């Protein structure tokens, strides 16, 4: 069955090494800017200006973390994509540069940086240069509010905990399309122009279902704050927003009480789901669960279109428009386009994780683990041993506490699973046509997302999720 275990093992090893690399360097950068530098500054001179500088350093930590994270992460994602596609197409993928092709994308990045930077004749040089910057910048400031949710509201990143986080992210994510249109127009190339215009049309149409599906979740959680939405999904997959956004909270608590043999199990059920109108309650719960699942898949679809992934990669349709809006770009400008594209993919995946898949929370409820492994003691023991082994890492390193650590770990697992799913989709599906894309967006997704939204509003009125 697992005939390909050698390649799968190599792939896993590669992923683990890269993840260590990414988060090690991000931690290092955060440590230097957030802890080491302020300490040194304060120790150097007890002075108001130095204290201010130290504070500024601490405030800058999230930005530094993102600036370090984005390029390395994009390299990793390109490698994952290439190796993943190689797995799906029964090939080996890049495996020459470094052990197992570990440094392939680093080499590619270096190559792109040293390539000649061409501005074509007749191109508008200013806009041509500005386009990649405008395309890339939102992925930096747009991902800032996510940091608080990803790190479990760590002290150093508390500054990124915006009360209207998701609103800010959506606003930021609609900026890049300006860069694409600008680049397409400035290139003085007809293919680029068509690509840029397609991109504009596509981004405008797919922003609506994307936002509506997120609004549904915000409404269910009564909050625009990503940290709060994340914290409401603690305690197992039944509390995730993808399963009704809190509609199954009561079930979760009831099961917990039932398994633990608690006497007040029925009281809990009664409190969450009043029995005097149980038909309505069941309908409402079913409606909520189904609607949120649909909302999740709608979000994934719209997000794919938003970041120009197959099957919605019309702005750079290779068989039609050569390479679309980035046909004329080379060297570092092309590298920035490339970087931003993969960062956007990562950002939409992490939004999906935070909004739908329980953010950094453990997917398996604790009571279930206790129940399942009641008789089999060695598995919890192994888990405990691993936790013990990791405890110096978790407890004794600066900046990291157990909450942050496990939150980041679960975020990584969930987000990269979604990224891997995007790779799988890329390996399977062909591309839409532009009119079909519009058709699908306006005639299918938008009505459906409105429908889902209304169902959620009415269903939420019936059951009380805020006990």
């Amino acid at each position, binding site marked *: *069955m*697992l*005939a*390909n275990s050698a*390649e*799968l093992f190599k792939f896993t090893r590669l992923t683990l090494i890269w993840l260590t690399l990414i988060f090690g360097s991000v931690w290092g950068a955060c440590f230097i800017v957030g802890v080491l530098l302020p300490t040194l500054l304060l120790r150097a001179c007890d002075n108001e200006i130095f204290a201010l500088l130290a504070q500024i350093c601490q405030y800058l930590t999230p930005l530094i973390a993102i600036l370090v994270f984005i390029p390395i992460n994009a390299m990793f994602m390109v490698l994952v994509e290439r190796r993943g596609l*190689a*797995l*799906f*197409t*029964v*090939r*080996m993928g890049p495996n020459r540069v470094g052990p197992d092709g570990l440094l392939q994308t680093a080499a590619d990045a270096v190559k792109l940086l040293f390539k000649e930077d061409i501005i074509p004749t007749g191109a508008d040089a200013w806009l041509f240069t500005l386009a990649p910057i405008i395309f890339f910048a939102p992925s930096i400031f747009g991902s800032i509010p996510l940091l608080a949710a990803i790190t479990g509201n760590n002290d150093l990143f508390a500054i990124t905990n915006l009360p209207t986080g998701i609103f800010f992210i959506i606003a930021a994510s609609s900026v890049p399309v300006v860069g694409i249109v600008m680049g397409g127009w400035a290139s003085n190339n007809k293919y680029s122009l068509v690509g840029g215009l397609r991109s504009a049309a596509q981004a405008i149409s797919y922003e609506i279902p994307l936002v509506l599906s997120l609004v549904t979740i915000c409404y269910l959680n009564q909050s625009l704050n990503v940290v709060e939405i994340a914290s409401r999904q603690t305690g197992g997959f039944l509390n995730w927003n993808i399963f009704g956004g809190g509609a199954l909270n009561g079930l979760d608590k009831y099961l917990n009480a039932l398994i633990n043999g608690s006497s007040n199990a029925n009281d809990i059920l009664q409190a969450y789901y009043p029995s005097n109108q149980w038909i309505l309650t069941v309908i409402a719960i079913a409606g909520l669960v189904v609607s949120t699942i649909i909302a999740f898949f709608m979000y994934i679809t719209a997000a794919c279109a938003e970041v120009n992934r197959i099957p919605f990669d019309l702005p750079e349709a290779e068989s039609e428009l050569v390479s679309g809006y980035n046909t004329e770009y080379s060297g570092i400008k092309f590298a920035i386009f490339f970087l931003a594209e993969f960062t956007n993919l990562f950002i939409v995946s992490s939004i999906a994780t935070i909004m739908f898949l329980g953010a950094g929370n453990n997917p398996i409820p604790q009571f279930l683990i206790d129940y399942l492994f009641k008789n089999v003691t060695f598995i919890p023991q192994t888990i405990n041993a691993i936790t013990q082994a990791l405890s110096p890492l978790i407890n004794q390193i600066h900046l990291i506490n157990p909450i942050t650590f496990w939150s980041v770990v679960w975020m990584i697992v969930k987000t990269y699973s979604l990224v891997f799913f995007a790779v*799988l*989709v890329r*390996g*399977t*599906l062909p591309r839409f046509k532009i009119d079909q894309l519009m058709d699908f967006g306006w005639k299918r997704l938008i009505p459906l997302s409105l429908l889902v939204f209304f169902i959620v509003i009415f269903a939420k009125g019936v059951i009380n999720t805020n006990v």
Partner: protein
Amino acid sequence: MSNLLTRAKDSIYQVLRGLKTVAVHSLRIPTTKEYPDTMPPLPPHFRGRLALNVNPETNEHLCISCRQCERVCPDKCIEITAHKSPETNKLELIDFKIDHGLCMFCGLCTEVCPTDCIINTNDFEMADYSREALVYDIRKLTLTQGESSHYFAAKEIALPKPKPAKPVASAPIAPSIAKPVETKTEAKPVETKTEAKPAETKTETKPAETKTEAKPAETDTDTKSTDNESK
């Protein structure tokens, strides 16, 4: 409405079916052959670089300078220089050049060779830094005894009979590289001499003026091959 739902259901099912088929492929062993590390298994009749055989048993050069390959080559990339030895009155090979930059590896020369001297080897790594380096002379073309016996076995060619009392042709190859002009002039009289001899072949229907160069060569080699057969 129900139609819409059925279609949506079908679509999702078909997409998932495709995704599953692709995902299952990740469990199969890759078909990639990591080329420089593992050479591809080439069949014996693979048409690679051209080479000249020696007799696997006696190590004498098998080429009899019959020019069949030179004549049949569609690209005209083979150039044979030979002269008639004054003592034995037999053709003696001086140089054998193949321009591998011009060759299209059709293998016709190997089919017409009467002594199975010229063969396609399994070697295909011939990249070089200049076009001149792709012109192989007899020293680069001639295989060793071991290689020859390997190809004779792999291609299932019958081993040649050792030639009776003929000077070893592979010996005088050294001077040809240094002075190609001289050997050319040396070769010319041989051709003109043989041209004069057979006057009976006049089968060409439309002899264009430009073909006069090629025609005597044909008649020349025709007589040569019949010579060999009679011998």
